[in-house]
């Protein structure tokens, strides 16, 4: 990734998720997590799926909506310093392919988890809560919004 040079990417954070194979890797990683959880002996399938969705959604929320800035010395003069990773994707353009993909993944995981937990009520509530945690901050109306000044600076 060419950072900080004249012809380089201004902020690599905006485009690396569009790279070849990233989406597939993301899905594979989710399944790897699930298989690791399945191999722990006392966890049933339904608990494993709920745990997978929960861990995935919480990590998703943390990485995309809590962490701000970019891990490189970017040449955009600190424009991205106050923006979360989600807001930096594609330099803030909404409705791109990556954004749609990342919005759909928690929903699809929710479907799978509901199926495998046999629509149990407790699991439903947990999965719904974490799915909302992962999906709601991705809506375009929340671009740049910091509720109650949390995480503003």
């Amino acid at each position: 990734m060419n950072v900080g040079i004249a012809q380089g990417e201004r902020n690599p954070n905006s485009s690396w998720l569009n790279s070849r194979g990233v989406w597939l890797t993301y899905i594979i990683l989710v399944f790897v997590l699930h298989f690791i959880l399945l191999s722990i002996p006392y966890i049933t399938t339904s608990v494993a799926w709920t745990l997978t969705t929960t861990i995935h959604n919480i990590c998703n929320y943390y990485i995309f909506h809590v962490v701000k800035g970019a891990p490189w010395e970017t040449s955009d003069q600190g424009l991205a310093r106050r923006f979360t990773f989600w807001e930096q994707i594609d330099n803030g353009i909404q409705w791109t392919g990556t954004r749609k993909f990342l919005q759909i993944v928690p929903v699809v995981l929710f479907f799978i988890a509901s199926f495998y937990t046999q629509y149990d009520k407790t699991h439903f509530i947990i999965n719904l809560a974490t799915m909302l945690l992962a999906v709601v901050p991705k809506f375009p109306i929340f671009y740049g919004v910091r509720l109650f000044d949390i995480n503003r600076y």
Partner: protein
Amino acid sequence: MGSPVNRDDIARLATDFYSLLESFKQTPFYHLIFEIFLILTVLWLVCFRKPRPIAKKLTEKEKQELIDEWQPEPLVPPVDTNHPALNVRVLDGIVGKTIEIDGRKSLNFATFNFLNFVGNQRIADKAIQAVQKYGVGSCGPRGFYGTIDIHLELEERLARFFNFEEGIIYSYGFSTIASIIPAYSKRNDILFVDEGIHYAIQKGVEASRSTVKWFRHNDINDLERLLAEQDKHDKKNPKKASTIRRFLIIEGLYMNYGDICPLPRMVELKYKYKYRIFMDESVSFGTIGQTGRGVTEYHNVDRQKIDLISSTLEYSVGSIGGFAVGSSFVIDHQRLSAQGYCFSASLPPLLAAAAIEALNIMDEENSLLFETLMDKSKRLHKKLLDIKGYRVLGEDISPLKHLSLANSLNTIGRLEYIVEFAQTRDITITIARYLNDEHHLPEPSIRLILNVEMTDEELEFLCTVLQEALVKVTA
């Protein structure tokens, strides 16, 4: 190798999956509706494409029509001739006791020239000598070839003036206090700040990123309440509380209000609640106290109990820049941590020389200059109160007073009328201007500054003009 997978295992897997499919038929109703809604949303999301605006195709004739009817905008748009940028008032000469605006001399009650050192010939001579000796600029920040012996002399003189161990000077008055506060108070520290502080201190408080507890202006009971609350909070977690630093940020004489802070009680509370006091004496340095040493002298408080006193050299001293004095342990920290000290060019030597000469004058004529100033302030205060129609804010010994009209009459429009009227009678006064993001915007007022060399007749004239203006504006 695990046990070979036999037909029973596969059968069991199949029944697991079958049982899952069976339970699908028994899903709760709300869940089913919710899932259908989500599926529809996902499908919509996948198919959604942001509509692109379709460019309309123009024919040749339409294009030609558009080209023909285009008129260029004038290079300079028409502007109202009363625009303030077109009616600039031009100052000529030194802005001292008198100020020459558009060719007319008027008495200056607007600039912070308390001791009339602006235009003082003795100081000007010393500054000229310094230019001949050192040149004009200092060519660098203090840490990189910008320190000249005259800076060290000024720092030592200032420290000696206040009887403190060390002093440090800055090259710009605004950035003095705005760099000092963030140098000591960091993100998890607590600042107890008076609401009426001026803008530079507000910026310093904001830049420090500390937790700020504002207390009502000069209200010591409000401060005690905040301190007691913080104390209660600390007792729950003493380990964390011992890592938090606490500071009290106050001004000696408040620029926005003209009143003096209740220092003795604040020093008492300092030892009870364990915080440090940073006092900004921009206005009170060189004006308050028998020898001009500020509010500590006025209240007769032991100066060593104040951790840091800062001020500007731009008001009574008549130079440019700022300084802070305190113990060596406190001041030395700023030499590496204060942004305005490390990363700005140092004070030009001619201004440092002017400041040293001003300090010489203050040291020698001390009993007369400051006593005269306090005396005249008291007399002016009485005269202003005699006018009966103005609200006079400020201590009687303060040379900085705020004048406003009573209650609902007090609008900027009326005050501007008073200022314009005074200018026609050759008295220059000004309205105190504030920025939009002041923490606590004071009431509109005229800020009167008393120059020590104003004679009694001039003060009488000022009051006469103010009286006439009052009559005209309330008519």
